[in-house]
Structures are given as structure tokens and as C-alpha cells.
């Protein structure tokens, strides 16, 4: 548990909290990008170089930008959406989340296996990662490729402006 880990974890969690609590939607999206970037550097800190960089590329570079785009396209950039509506539902939501966190934390602190001394860091070069992707996991890889293509086409069709008069 190094100081770097604590700082990165704090950045990630503060970013996540800000993304869920700020009033301006664009501010939320920017805070989300901070949280994603913090998580990416956390992966780097844990020795997963490829994953950390992929996280930055996909989440900060694509998903955060996509969210920002949709916020602007739905004209949410200026309007403030209230953080918590005055009904009883939000309190229930926070309570549920707290309860789940409490259960998870209890489980973490009461599991013996987790608290065994740390092992040396595993060596996983990018070459190994690529080889196992191309050999053992080639079918899931193909399925992911197919799914991404389907999602690409589906997203375009769903978001396409419907024509007023069909030809």
C-alpha cells in the first residue's frame, strides 16, 4: 500500500463522487473523466500497463467524450438538474448503496484469504497478452468484434433522425 495508491484511489473516488453529485451535467461528465483517468493510472500502478492505457483511450477518449456530446445534443449543458429530488426515493437509494458497501466491506475484512501476504507481481508482457488473445481467447475476441460492429450499426440506426415523410 504505497502513497501513490492512496493518492490515485482518492482522485478516483473524489472524481466519482463529484460525477454523481455536481449540479451541472457537463461538470459531471468532466469529473467522470477524472475518475476514469484516475482508475487508468491505478491500473498502471498495479502493473497492468496495457489495461491502464486502454482504459485511458477508451473511457477518457471515447466514452467521456460521447457522454459530453449527448449532453450537448440533449441541451443539458446549461440546465441544472437537481441533485436529489424531494421525494423519499433518493434517500432510499443512498441507503441501499451504503448498505451494499457495508456488506462488501464486512466481507472484505472477514475473509482470511485476502489478508495473506502479497505475492510477487506477475509478469505479463504485452506479447503474452496478445498471444493468449490470439490463441486461447480467439473466439471471445471474434464475438466481441461482432458485437462492437452490431453496436456501431445499432447505435447509428437508433440515433438517426427519422425522416418526416418516408420515401
Amino acid at each position, binding site marked *: 500500500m504505497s502513497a501513490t495508491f492512496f493518492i490515485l484511489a482518492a482522485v478516483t473516488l473524489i472524481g466519482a463522487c463529484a460525477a454523481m453529485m455536481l449540479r451541472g451535467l457537463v461538470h459531471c461528465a468532466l469529473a467522470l473523466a477524472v475518475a476514469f483517468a484516475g482508475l487508468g493510472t491505478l491500473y498502471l500502478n498495479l502493473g497492468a500497463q496495457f489495461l491502464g492505457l486502454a482504459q485511458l483511450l477508451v*473511457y477518457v477518449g471515447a466514452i467521456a467524450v460521447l457522454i459530453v456530446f449527448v449532453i450537448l445534443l440533449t441541451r443539458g449543458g446549461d440546465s441544472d438538474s437537481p441533485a436529489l429530488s424531494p421525494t423519499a426515493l433518493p434517500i432510499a437509494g443512498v441507503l441501499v448503496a451504503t448498505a451494499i458497501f457495508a456488506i462488501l466491506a464486512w466481507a472484505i475484512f472477514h475473509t482470511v484469504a485476502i489478508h495473506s501476504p502479497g505475492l510477487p507481481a506477475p509478469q505479463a508482457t504485452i506479447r503474452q497478452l496478445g498471444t493468449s488473445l490470439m490463441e486461447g481467447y480467439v473466439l471471445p475476441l471474434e464475438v466481441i468484434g461482432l458485437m462492437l460492429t452490431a453496436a456501431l450499426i445499432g447505435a447509428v440506426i*437508433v440515433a438517426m433522425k427519422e425522416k418526416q415523410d418516408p420515401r
Partner: protein
Amino acid sequence: MTALAGCLLVSSMLFAVGLAGALTRRNTILVLVGIELMLNAANLNFVAFWRFGPHAGAATGMIFVLFSIGVAAAEAAVGLALILAVYRHTKTTDLSQLTGRPQ
């Protein structure tokens, strides 16, 4: 506290924050953001177990996260496209207003 427990604690906090946001925020986009945060919390768990777990030789944890990132990208794209389509019909992204409408 070991490093693995620290990672798991951070990840469960991230999950709780995402869950709280997804349950309380009224904007559809922010609900999606909450779901993304929960997915990321799960990814952090995978990385932590890959790093500190007993079978570290295999890169399985990394590959699982890689696939998960791919799925999350597809999910975000389709989800946001749906939000756009709904917005075009109802002119709002507010969940509490969306439920009240007949369409």
C-alpha cells in the same frame, strides 16, 4: 490491511458511489454514468485479483477486463443512442418526467 484488501475496498466504494448515483439522479445520462462507474469498479476487482491472486501466471484477469472494456464501450454507445432517440420524442432526459408520459 494488505494491498489486495485496499484495492477491493476502493472498488466497493466506487461501486457504492455508482449505485447511489444511478438510483438517485433523475437525469438519464447520469444514470448511465452511474452504471459505467459500477462496471469500472468490477474491472478494478479483476485487475486486483490478477495482480495479487494466486494464479498470477495466466493473464486471464487482464483479458477479462479487456473484454469488459469492449462491452462497456458498446453499451455506452447504444445507451447514449437510445437516450438521444428518447429525447427526440419526448424533449426531455428527466426520468421522473419520462415516466409520467403516455408515449
